[in-house]
């Protein structure tokens, strides 16, 4: 923006914002747009302004093409070409976009926008997608985390309680999926969830379905595969904490007459809580930024923030939006880490890969 329209920016900086900008701004804009079109530099500016105000791309391209034919005074010939040049809002938009920083993307990532006068308000309901997206990411991550902790706790407890050859065998069965790549396991799920695949066969066989179900592309598939991929991440920190527990606490509880259930509830569970917090937090951290599994087995409506970051970066080439979404995602992860530090007194799990 600053590189493509430097003189327009300078001319607009002197403008008081009332009525219309001076003739110098009109002339500079016509001249610089024509030059940008000639040198094929107009794409960035038009995309940037079009994102803020749909229709700007067409306006800029049209103006740039017509500019060489126009003559002074541009303050009259430009509005004659397109009435929007006689609106102060259009010029304010260009002036605001010319600044070195903008809050546009950070606001848009939470479905807010700025009016030409600088007022912050919610975007039109049909454009409001990001708050829903963050809530969906949060919701999916929470379900996955809770499921992983609930499914993983008994496994960790059993590994801690079993005797050596058996405990190592069980631990190996957790470590193997932990080490194998996320892409490999997601691909396996994709194959198993096919319409003619084994899961559907099993459902038909068990009488749970009358006809093969479309499983790939559903929220169910995303949850199932994500829980499977992240389960070892939840189990391993819990194993770490539980194997280090002092078993004499339990013996003491038993010798004092506590039933197994009471001993579990009042002694075993509270003692294992740091592991639960560490495993849960690690799972949540990976889940909020998860990309591969939802992208492979989920549909358009099941994608999380990570997918949109990738889309804005790779397909739409809108770096501002993907950076803004990344900032919020990072803030979410930071909040979880801070919470974990408070809960566990500064112990962070290490050695977890995904």
């Amino acid at each position, binding site marked *: 923006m600053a590189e493509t329209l430097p003189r327009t920016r300078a001319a607009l900086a002197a403008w008081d914002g009332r009525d219309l900008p001076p003739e110098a701004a009109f002339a500079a804009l016509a001249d610089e747009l024509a030059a940008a079109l000639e040198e094929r530099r107009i794409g960035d500016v038009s995309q940037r302004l079009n994102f803020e105000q749909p229709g700007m791309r067409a306006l800029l391209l049209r103006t740039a093409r017509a500019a060489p034919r126009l003559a002074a005074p541009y303050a009259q010939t430009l509005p004659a070409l397109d009435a929007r040049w006689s609106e102060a809002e259009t010029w304010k938009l260009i002036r605001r976009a010319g600044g070195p920083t903008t809050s546009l993307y950070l606001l848009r990532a939470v479905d807010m926008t700025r009016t030409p006068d600088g007022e912050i308000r919610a975007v039109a309901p049909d454009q409001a997608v990001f708050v829903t997206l963050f809530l969906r990411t949060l919701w999916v991550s929470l379900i996955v985390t809770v499921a992983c902790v609930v499914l993983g706790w*008994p496994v960790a*407890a059993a590994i801690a309680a079993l005797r050596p050859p058996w405990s190592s065998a069980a631990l190996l069965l957790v470590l193997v999926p932990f080490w*194998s*790549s996320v892409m490999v396991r997601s691909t396996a799920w994709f194959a198993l969830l096919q319409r003619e695949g*084994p899961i559907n066969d099993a459902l038909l066989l068990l009488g749970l379905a009358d006809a093969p179900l479309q499983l790939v592309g559903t929220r169910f598939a995303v949850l199932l595969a994500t829980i499977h991929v992240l389960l070892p991440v939840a189990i391993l920190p819990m194993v770490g904490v539980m194997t280090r527990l002092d078993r004499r606490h339990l013996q003491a509880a038993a010798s004092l007459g506590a039933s197994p259930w009471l001993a579990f509830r009042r002694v*075993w569970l509270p003692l294992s809580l740091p592991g639960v917090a560490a495993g849960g937090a*690690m799972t949540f951290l990976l889940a909020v930024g998860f990309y591969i599994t939802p992208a492979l087995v989920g549909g358009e409506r099941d994608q999380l923030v990570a997918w949109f*970051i990738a889309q804005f970066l790779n397909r739409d080439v809108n770096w501002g939006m993907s950076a803004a979404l990344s900032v919020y995602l990072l803030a979410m992860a930071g909040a979880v880490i801070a919470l974990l530090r408070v809960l566990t007194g500064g112990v962070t799990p290490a050695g977890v890969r995904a």
Partner: protein
Amino acid sequence: MQRPSGLLLGVTALVLAFLTAPMLAALWLSFSPTELLRFPPPGLSLRWYADFFGNERWVLATRNSLIVATATMMVATALGTAAAIGLHLGNFRARGLLVALLTLPMVTPFIVTAAAMFFAFSTVGLAGTLPGLVLGHTVVAVPFVLITVLASLSTFDATLLRAAASLGAPPSLALRRVLLPRIWPGIAAGAVFAFATSLDEFVITLFLAGPGQFTLPRQMYANVREYMTPTILAAASLLFLASFAFLLLTEALRRR
């Protein structure tokens, strides 16, 4: 809980089955003689493995993956080991902060790390290049090297270095003859971690790789979206076996 109850063992068995079954099923299906992903496959064949090794795209992707993983392993192991030694032997106040900073990529959402690297690398022209890709993988691989080497250093007695110095050994010699022979299993385990991390990495590759730079995970992703064939499962099974070998290797190194 002196002895685990039957209920606990039953639930554990079910969850462990859930954990392992999908991969075993995919492994089995990769040997299917037909294109249908049906259970049970009507026989066993190596057809899809032959297809994998006969297909130029898969072979190229495998080669790319190995090149990037080897380069990442070397850079990350060198950097991570040096950092760990410095952090362990050095006596300075910012030590904890530095460890936290260096292990930050482990707790940062991968997509954020990847996007941030893409922005940074684009401004210096590293995006879409092989060195850029290796550097990107190195960033996420270094924490694993750092942590494994730090762990093996924690059992190393630093007075041995002082003894070496008092006997006239210059620091480089003491490092080579005294320190490294004692911590090499940790370094080797870190190197395996780094190699495995790079081999599996997808998100950073998605952003930083050039249009022609297909690694195995990227090729798999592209093929799954296009058309699911058992060849992809053959690729997945090969990667799975590789990670299984890495696991056994690190366990063996841990025992030393």
